Structure formats: C-alpha cells, structure tokens
C-alpha cells in the first residue's frame, strides 16, 4: 500500500497493531506505519489455533529482510483462525495490511478491553508526536 | 577464454574428469558388499564435481579476484579490528611440528605445543593483570561465555 491509511472502523494499539471488532470476535493485523517501518515482509510466524493471546502481549513475529518484530495482541482472547495465505505470500502484509494482510481472528475474552484502544485519529496523533 | 565467473564448481563438472588418483592397492580387493551390508551402503555416489586440478585452480583463483581483502586495502572497522598479521605466522603454523601434531598425542610427545600455549597464557595474563586465562572458544563473542578471570 503506497500511501498511509488508517481506516476509521478499526481500533488501534500503541505498538502499531489494529483490531476489527465484530461482536465477540475480532481480526488483528499490523498498521500501515508498522509495515512501512519493517520494509518488505518475508515471513510471518503465526501462533497455533487455540492459543490464548493476552492484550499487550506478543503473540507472533513478523520478519523483514533486516529486522524481526514482535506482533502485539491489541485484545485478549483465543485464536480461532490464522491467515494461511501469508505463508506463500507474506508481502500481502505490506500491500494490504488491513485486508488480505490480516494476521489472526480471535474470540474475545473481554470485549470491554476495546474501550482502552485508540481510534484512527488518536493513533495518527500518536504517530505525529513521534512515538 | 575466460570462464564464466558465476558458474559454480558443480556446474563445471564433466563426467569422467578427475584430479585425485588413489594410491596403488596393496591389500586384497575384498568385495565391498562383504565389508559393508547393503542397508548401510550408499545407493549412488554423492554428486560431487568431476573436474581436473587445473580447473579447480582456475575456478577458485577467479573467485578470489572477486574479493576485497586486507592485503589489498584497509577496513575502517571497530567491530573486528582488521590488522596485519605478520606473514611469518603462516610459515610457523605450517611447520610439521605444529601442523602435523594430533590433538590427542601423548603429552610427553607434545611438550613443544604445550609450552607454546603456556607462554601465550602467561603473556595474556601478564598484559592484563589477571591471575589466569583459558583457551577454549574460537572467537571473542563466544569467549564471553567462559569469561577470562
């Protein structure tokens, strides 16, 4: 994705992860800023389905040519699904970080946690302040 | 004709070529399957190159010219300080008394080597004021494990 974008329908975590909440489930991914900082993603190491993830905890790793980065869970829950396409085409994380580059789908254990996340405006403020 | 520098030694292989000539057999040529059961034997030889000695020489000499090196110019590095090592070292290390000495040789027959190590140990601790030092790891980063005194 060539230009920075931060969709309004998502919630954002200060470690540059997003969550799309739908009822008691959510989809997680990394933001445009994160994929841009990493560079070309070459590998995504997913958690197993069934793993418990905890808000603010690292649950996976994303690798680019020159760096490895922990991916942080914006919310807590149980991993229901993992994006298997990323094994063959990890570059989807760069090209479409909010769509085809989604990482995991989770059943939330505490939907109220979403209130503590930022909206798109607050997240962009964070980026501008040079986090 | 300049060989294609990017060809690997495997790609230069031509069936039937050889560099090594085995020593003449001087023991009975017992069939190999009497010495090694089929279950343990290789089905087909490892696909190593079949090349002659001059081909090996040209291949690696050509590759060497694609390297920058310290004897040609300097490296402004701090991480691994690239200094000149006196050429005498290669001559000394190649002396049979050093080069052809087995590590498990009876210490009574390795006194020269052991004294050499002792002299170096002393020089290291004298220069650092440490009571003793250890030879084990091959490079600085792994040496941080056992740690000098």
């Amino acid at each position: 994705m060539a230009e920075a974008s931060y969709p309004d329908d998502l919630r954002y975590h200060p470690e540059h992860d997003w969550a799309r909440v739908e009822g008691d489930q959510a989809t997680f991914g990394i933001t445009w800023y994160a994929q841009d900082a990493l560079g070309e993603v070459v590998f995504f190491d997913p958690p197993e389905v069934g793993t418990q993830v905890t808000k603010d905890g690292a649950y996976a790793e994303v690798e680019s040519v020159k760096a490895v980065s922990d991916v942080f869970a914006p919310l807590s829950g149980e991993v229901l699904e993992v994006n298997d396409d990323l094994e063959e085409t990890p570059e989807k994380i760069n090209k479409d970080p909010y769509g085809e580059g989604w990482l995991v789908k989770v059943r939330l254990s505490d939907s109220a946690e979403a209130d503590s996340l930022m909206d798109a405006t607050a997240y962009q403020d964070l980026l501008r302040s040079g986090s | 004709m300049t060989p294609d520098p990017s060809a690997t030694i495997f790609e230069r292989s031509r069936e039937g070529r050889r560099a090594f000539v085995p020593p003449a057999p001087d023991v009975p040529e017992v069939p190999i399957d009497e010495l090694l059961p089929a279950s343990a034997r290789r089905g087909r030889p490892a696909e190593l190159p079949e090349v002659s000695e001059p081909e090996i020489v040209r291949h690696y000499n050509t590759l060497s010219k694609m390297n920058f090196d310290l004897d040609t110019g300097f490296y402004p590095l701090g991480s691994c300080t690239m200094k000149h090592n006196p050429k005498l070292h290669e001559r000394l290390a190649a002396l049979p008394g050093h080069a052809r000495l087995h590590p498990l040789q009876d210490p009574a027959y390795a006194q020269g080597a052991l004294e050499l190590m002792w002299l170096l140990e002393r020089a290291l601790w004298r220069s650092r004021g440490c009571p003793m030092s250890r030879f084990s790891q091959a490079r600085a980063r792994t040496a941080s494990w056992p740690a000098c005194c």
Partner: protein
Amino acid sequence: MLDAIGVGSLEDLFAEIPEGVRLGRELDLPEGRAEQEVYEELASLAARNGHCDDEVSFLGAGMYDHYVPALVDSIVQRSEFLTPYTPYQPEISQGGLQVMFEFQTAISELTGLPISNASVYEGPSAVAAAGYLAKLETGRTKLVASRGVHPHSRAALRTHAAGYRMAVEEVPLTAEGATDAAALASEIDDDTAAVFLQQPNFLGTVEELGELAEAAGGKGALVVCAADPLPLGVLKPPGEQGVDICVGEGQTLGNRLDFGGPSFGFFAAQERFIRKLPGRIAGETRDVDGKRGFVLTLQTREQHIRREKATHNICTSQALNALAGVIYLSWLGKRGLVEIAELMLRRTHYARQALGLEAINPGPVVREFAVRVPDLDALFERARAEQINPGYRLGSDYPEYEDGLLIAITERRTRADIDRLATVAAAAREGVAA
C-alpha cells in the same frame, strides 16, 4: 599523521578514557625481536613435538591423518581468501560467498539433507548447537545421547545444555559396540527434545541408523546424527535414514591436524528447520542487472538482528577451513570419494585380521575399530621404540573398555605400516624383543 588529524599527541587519542580504568603502566610483555629470532624460538618448540611425519600414527578418535593435496594450500594461502573480512558487503565479497554456497551444496550432497549452513567452529559445538535447535523446536527439556557419540561432543552438549536448562541422559552400547536400540527406545519419552547418534560411532562401528532413527522419531524427538564426512562417501546418507539434523567435524576434509587447531564443523538439516539453523547461510540471488550473485541470507536468525532470541550466538563461520574442505571434495570428486573410502574399508579389514586382537566391535567398520589389548603399556612401549603410535587408549573415556585401543586406518597407512604394527603387537603379546 597526528598533524593530519589535528591531534597533539598519541595520549590525546585516549583522553576520553576515565583515569580510574586506565592501566597506568607499560604492558608487561617481552620486547619485540627480529623475525629470525622469533622463527628460531618457535621452530625449536615445534621440533620438540612428536608429529605424524615422525611416527607411523594409528591415532584417530575424531581427527585423522589424511593426505591433503598441495592444491589446497596454493589456493587457501591466497591473500584474497586469507585476509578478507566477513562478507557483510556482498558487492566486495562475491568470491567468498560463492565458496560458501558451493561448500553448503557439497555438505548437502554428503549428508542427504537439503539445507546446510556455511560452517561452524568444529564438530562438538555443532552437536551442542543441535541441542539448542531441538529446544527451540520442541520446547522440551531432555536430550538423549548414545555413548557412541564422541566423548568431546557429549561433554560439549552437557556444558551447553546446562546453560539452556536441559538434562542429558546417556544410552549404553551393546556388547558389539553399537548403540543399544532397546535401551534407546526406553530412554526416550514425551519430554525428549532430541536423540544424538554418531555414524560411524566413536569406536568406528557402522550403526543401524535407520532403525535407531525410527525408535527415536516415534515420540516426536528430533534425530541428530554426528557424522564424519569422509566415510559418508560409501555410507547411506543420514538424511535418507530418518535423520533430522546431521552435524560433524570437518577436519578430515582438506584440513591439517594443527594439534586440534582451526577446522570446521558442518550443520545440515531438513528444510523445516531453516529458520532455526545456527550460523551463516549463503544464498543465491540476482543483482540489479539480473546476474547471479550470492549474499548472506536469513540473517534475522542471527544475534546481530535477533539479539537474545537468536538461534545461536555464533556470528561467523570457519570460511577458510570450509574453503579447504570444498577444494578437497572437488579434488576427490564424485568417484575419488568412493575410491578413497573403499581403500580405507579394505585396509581396515586387513588390519583387523593382521593384528589378531580381540575385537570390541566385530561388526562393519570403515576406517577405525576397537580392540582389547592385554597389556597396553607394553604395546605402547614397544611401538614407541619403533616410532609407531598405536592409537587411542579408550579407558579414560570408556571405563567399560579399560583395556581398549582405538585404531585408525586412513589412506596414509599402508599395508607395510599395518604389518609393522602387527609385528609389534605380536611381540608385545609374547613379551619378546620385536
């Protein structure tokens, strides 16, 4: 030069270093001497060593007196291979990187495993590194090692395993000097991360690798095999027998004995372990003009990027020794490797018969075998008098073989050499002058 950089004196360059940590005295080292004097002193030390040109040596036990062709030195001593830095800048290191790539390819071929790194320091630390990979892969805490694995490798494994909090259990050898398959199977449980075997084992026995690997694999433990690359010329590749990781000592490939000095270790594995492999890996790529080139790759495994989560702390390779290895393998070639292994097989067989000593491991061997010697001291005394080194005394590593002797027959040991040892052994038995 001080003028050129605008500095008053040499002392000014160290002005940043606090007084409290300065040495405050001259280094207590001897004065520098003339090259000639240094040569005389170190050459006289060399002259006091009993080396393989001075004696007929049957000493093996992990490092061997093989013939290294003149070809190796003529290439390895070239400045462009001897003196460059690590190839972090591929544009000035294509020669060294291509050598690494060729080396990796050769190791893959020998071991029957699809991936290989560009070398590690030596055999024992490669074995220890495999233990760490098994921990990363399985999360389990136990390692099981056959007593057929080299004592130094088992010791290195224990040392490293203690650091990453794993226990090492050992499995005995049978009366025939091979790994006890039943004992191995019963030692392996759901907490076993890896099983360690060696081919040929330390006594020289050719192990039934396929059966042993099967016993191990059943509980999800990784199978690690330490192997000597030269016998792999005739032995079935570990990768074709259920082995997950094959490591080993590379000294036999074109490297000197050097009193145990620099050689290389190799590390090869099944494809699924590629992101957990230790050490450097050279990869093939294309440059901006579309031409083939080589680079260090998958560097995100290494500690300069991944820090405490790195797959190992090694940040280097034994590139020069590995170069000697790949030159040597190219010199032997596809047929030569088979020929040299077959020569050793036949000479070793001849030696076992000629010596007529009781076999510790009577089964198939390639280049080394173990025998019982009623009076080892007497044998060594007579042998030394004839400038013969009869081999390695097993007692210190294997109390179960207190009277054991490990004899290595490389391609340098001729029939005449073997006959001389046989004469000495016979004389020692009879207690008469040879």
